[in-house]
């Protein structure tokens, strides 16, 4: 039995052997926001915050997150349902197409802007180099985050 918190809520899980955190979140806890697209830590679609740091949840064993604090994309909007600034900016700038990469980008970008409130274009590209988007060509994502940085 593994105890940890997800989006501030204490949770328990009984992972089967080397089960990934991604599988536990999705198939056992019903949190479908993090996506599996490569299972190798290459695409970032499964990004969550683990004790405040972005990780590929496909590469983390659930057995290793005992007593840890996990934040998924479902935990970023405010309790009243209003969007996180990154979510609102990506919506406004057309940064969502198929949306499969979007939860990973939202989590990684929220973490970036937490640390670096006004990142340069090169900072944004470097920080999000581990998140693959096949639809947008990244342009609208860059415009979203640049605009957010300018507001900061």
């Amino acid at each position: 039995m593994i105890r940890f918190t997800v989006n501030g809520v204490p949770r328990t899980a009984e992972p089967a052997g080397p089960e990934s955190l991604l599988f536990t979140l999705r198939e056992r806890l019903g949190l479908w926001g993090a996506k599996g697209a490569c299972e190798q830590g290459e695409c970032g679609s499964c990004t969550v915050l683990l004790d405040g740091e972005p990780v590929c949840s496909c590469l983390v064993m659930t057995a290793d997150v005992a007593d840890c604090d996990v934040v998924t994309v479902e935990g970023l909007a405010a309790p009243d349902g209003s969007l996180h600034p990154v979510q609102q900016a990506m919506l406004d700038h057309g940064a969502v197409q198929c949306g499969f990469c979007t939860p990973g980008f939202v989590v990684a970008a929220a973490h970036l802007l937490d640390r670096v409130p006004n990142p340069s274009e090169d900072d944004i590209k470097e920080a999000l180099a581990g998140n693959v988007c096949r639809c947008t060509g990244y342009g609208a994502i860059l415009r979203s985050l640049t605009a957010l940085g300018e507001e900061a």
Partner: protein
Amino acid sequence: MITRTAIAPVSGGIGESVVRPDGVPKLTGEFSYSSDLHHDDMLWGATLRSPHPRARIRSIDISAALAMTGVHAVLTADDVPGSKTFGQERSDQPVFAWDEVRFWGEAVAAVAADDPETARRAAAAILVDYEPLEPLTDPEEAERRGETFRVMDLTNGDRGLRGEVVVEGYYETGMIDQAMLGTESGLAIPDGRGGVDLHISTQWMHVDHRQIVASLGLAPEMVRLHPAGIGGAFGAREDISVQIHLCMLALHTGRPVKIVYDRAESFAGHVHRHPARMWYRHEADRAGDLVRVEARILLDGGAYAETSSAVIANAVYFAVGPYRCPSVSIHGAAVCTNHPPAGAMRGFGANQVCVAYEAQMDRLAAALGMDAIELRLRNALGPGDRIPTSGQEITGSLPTAEVIRSAAALPLPDDDSGDPRRLPGGTGLTTPRAAVRRGVGFAVGIKNIAFSEAFDDYTEARAVLTPAGLEIHTAASEVGQGMVTVLQQIARSATGIEHVEVVFADTSQIGSAGSTSASRQTQMAGGAVFEAACAVRDEALRRAGGDRLSGDGVWRDGRVVATLDALLADGPISHHVTFRHPPTERPNATGQGDVHAGFAVAAHRAVVDVDPELGLVRVVQIDTAQDVGRALNPQAVLGQIEGGIAQGLGMAIMEEVLLDRGVVRNASFTDYLLPTFPDMPAVEAVIIEHPEPWGPFGAKGFAELPSISSTPAVVAAIRDATGRPLTRVPVRPEDVAGL
């Protein structure tokens, strides 16, 4: 045909950058993709695939797998109740191979078990006795043996015409993967009456449905396909993957069954872009007018037909590009090998030939001593001209010269910030700035819109006016491109009703929308929605004797004469439309005819920085001018342009499915390189708007074009920087370095 183009005054109509209705759920993680489906009672499926590119199957022993705890079914070809093969154009691909496997990764058996791990282990426990056979992997040998899906010999004009200036070249393009982020997945739920409900991500539910019921041996009404959220497509979801296996496992076990491919299986589970070999000869007069183009185009279709016969047709019809030419002879063949099947990918045959004909245009310009852009402008196709291959007159818009001039006129990028992250090789600091060579390349591309060659191409849609607003019912697939937004905008501008909801119907509720491919849904689903919405509006106005409709009701002379509640007291107004584009013809024996419904063009200019010693390339900027008919949603237009350019860049310098005697060696995102954020340059885009006659409000499908000429533009820029011929894409570091 659409003749009414009056635009109702309404918020959220055409021309606005309206945000997507599915944007918030996708941003919060609530949007349900086909891989997010869950049923409390469900089993997990897994597929056993061939490790050989070609082998005889001597025997299959499922007993050990079936005996495992938690395994509920192990199915092989013997269990297929109906047609043991499927295929969109030709039913030639086994649901499960029985006598012979014909490509690496071909499905042999499928398992349903309590959890995915047990299913995977059970699949691995199936004993297949293979006798490996020599695979056919050389496409030229395949053509010699007559192993072809389609051969075309197209000739237009006087074969005897000759030009004084001649350039020849041989070009190759590699096998490319769509790499949509959502892998193949779905959930099949038996209905308890012998039928099944399949929740699936696909580009065309109704063509899947036809193949599924044939293989299940069921009446069409016993199988219903429900659209599930789609994580990208780009052609990969135009053919069958998990569909038949899922339905068979669900019907066999009487339990819901879910399958989600992992990335490695996804590489085996869908078609790829055809690898191409292309031989070209261009002849021009001294003034720079094209006189004759000859080409031989060989596309490797892999083991099964899929859509190869349509892809080779596109390659042949667009073999000359968007240029006038009085004399053309093209030989094209899509061949059958033991490679993984090839089929649809964004651009559909137009990309490969663009790599070749644009390299030829640059060679021709050099031979003529003429500016390469001037040569393209001199030969640019436009309305009233004829497509040089098919001889079809261009009756719609086609602003080739304008896209060339507009892209060429954009300012070149300033020199860089000096940030080492902008060097080829990045912060590895593999080369000093002074050793970096900059190059600029230019290319133009053309493609048809919607289906061709007399295909009965139609889209159904229903518009329903209720007191709450307008509902649009469609089976068209929203793959991420934003069709859902554009259909709302079209319906608003057609009716004046602001509240529009797009309802994605299942196959029992509405007929086919055709495929979300061939850049067709803005014009086809959009056209159907426009007509249905106009009919509903007209009926509302007729009933109440009004002159304008809005969410408040029917208006006459500036005041509301009937609210929607009053107007619809006896029930909603509903209108169903089956929309067809202008008919197209089959080609004659020499490839002539009005085979296409419309065309779009684009031009791209790429700027690259190259480290000539290590062969590293950084694309600095890609500028474009894009023919769109009319931009219904400018933000979505830009999204398609930038996304298509990223894929064109990938094909130019990064992406290739590597084959070794028929075996895929890089079926993962670790080894199949996709453009990441730092790989993607700035894009400056000019939107060119000339209304297309049959598009709603003059809109034109265009979303394949950004991925077509961006590839040769990048390659031309690297040639400019290095002086190397670079006749193969993707361009590899060793090609750039000349090793």
